[in-house]
């Protein structure tokens, strides 16, 4: 045995790899099947009637199921946004781009998507946008079926119309 001082182990690597199945759930599956048909589906709370997009199966406010389908258009209002200038692993979008929180017409919650076809400096809260879908034959049960959102050219929505969703 050597008497030389031993170096303390400061770091070890123990990689963990586990494979899981993912269950989107009944609500999210209905939404994703709608996307595969080129339409955005909202689900309505059985208690407070709020409409959720994309639905996760329950109204988090009431703890009640969202069962009835509600008509939601693929147009909406930007309630908040961020200009992304830093690349991220797994995000294959040309920089810079805008990630926005969008309140779709007919929905009571916002969801996130990418805004394109407009200079990033021109994106603003209240801007009206619409979905740009992939070609019909490329539609599948994924949010990637919507390429991005682009401005509609309509006048901006008044602040009061989305202030509850910030």
């Amino acid at each position, binding site marked *: 045995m050597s008497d030389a001082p031993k170096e303390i182990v400061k770091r070890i690597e123990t990689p963990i790899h*586990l494979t899981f199945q993912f269950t989107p*759930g009944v609500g999210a599956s209905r939404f994703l099947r709608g996307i595969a048909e080129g339409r955005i589906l909202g689900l309505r709370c059985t208690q407070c009637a709020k409409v959720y997009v994309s639905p996760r199966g329950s109204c988090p406010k009431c703890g009640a199921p969202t069962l009835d389908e509600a008509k939601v258009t693929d147009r909406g209002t930007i309630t908040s946004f961020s200009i992304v200038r830093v690349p991220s692993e797994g995000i294959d979008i040309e920089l810079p781009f805008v990630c926005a929180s969008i309140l779709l017409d007919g929905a009571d919650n916002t969801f996130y998507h990418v805004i394109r076809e407009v200079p990033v400096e021109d994106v603003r809260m209240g801007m009206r946008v619409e979905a740009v879908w992939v070609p019909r034959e490329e539609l599948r049960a994924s949010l990637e079926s919507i390429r991005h959102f682009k401005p509609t050219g309509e006048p901006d929505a008044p602040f009061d119309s989305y202030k509850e969703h910030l």
Partner: protein
Amino acid sequence: MRDVAIVSFAQSPSIRREPARNDVEMLMPVIAEALERSKVKRDRVGFWCSGSTDFLTGQPFSFVGALDAVGAWPPISESHVEMDGAWALYEAWIRMQHENLDAAVVYAFGRSSLGPVPDVMCMQLDPYVLTPLWPDAVSLAALQARAYLEASGKTERDLAEVAIRNRRNAKANPNAQVKG
């Protein structure tokens, strides 16, 4: 000590796999049923506590998502423990000893069918010397059984009789998956 009683409970059907619903969709009817049986209104529940482990679901912070099954508005007092329903019940019991609350809801969830359970169980071992060896849960149970046989002088047949007795008892339990 303040006496605390369980006034109602409910559970989801015990099935091998649930391919359609997510955790929230499974929890909602169970929580609603337990509340309904207790006759306690949601707004009288002073504390909500869940027990679960993200390693079963394979999703970080799955207990946060599970709150969507509870109805957390107006804001509620809630907590989560990383284990199971019994541990969550203990936290609720402690709170009831110390705080001014009269009713609590305790819920637990987890689906072991989503991942490789024998490997997932490795995650509860010592992370420095045991987990990196990936001893699966079945092998660890076998080591335990062998150690027990050596130490106690019992036989394989003695252990088999325990399994036989449990399976026989399970025949009367509609929630048991392995029986007979």
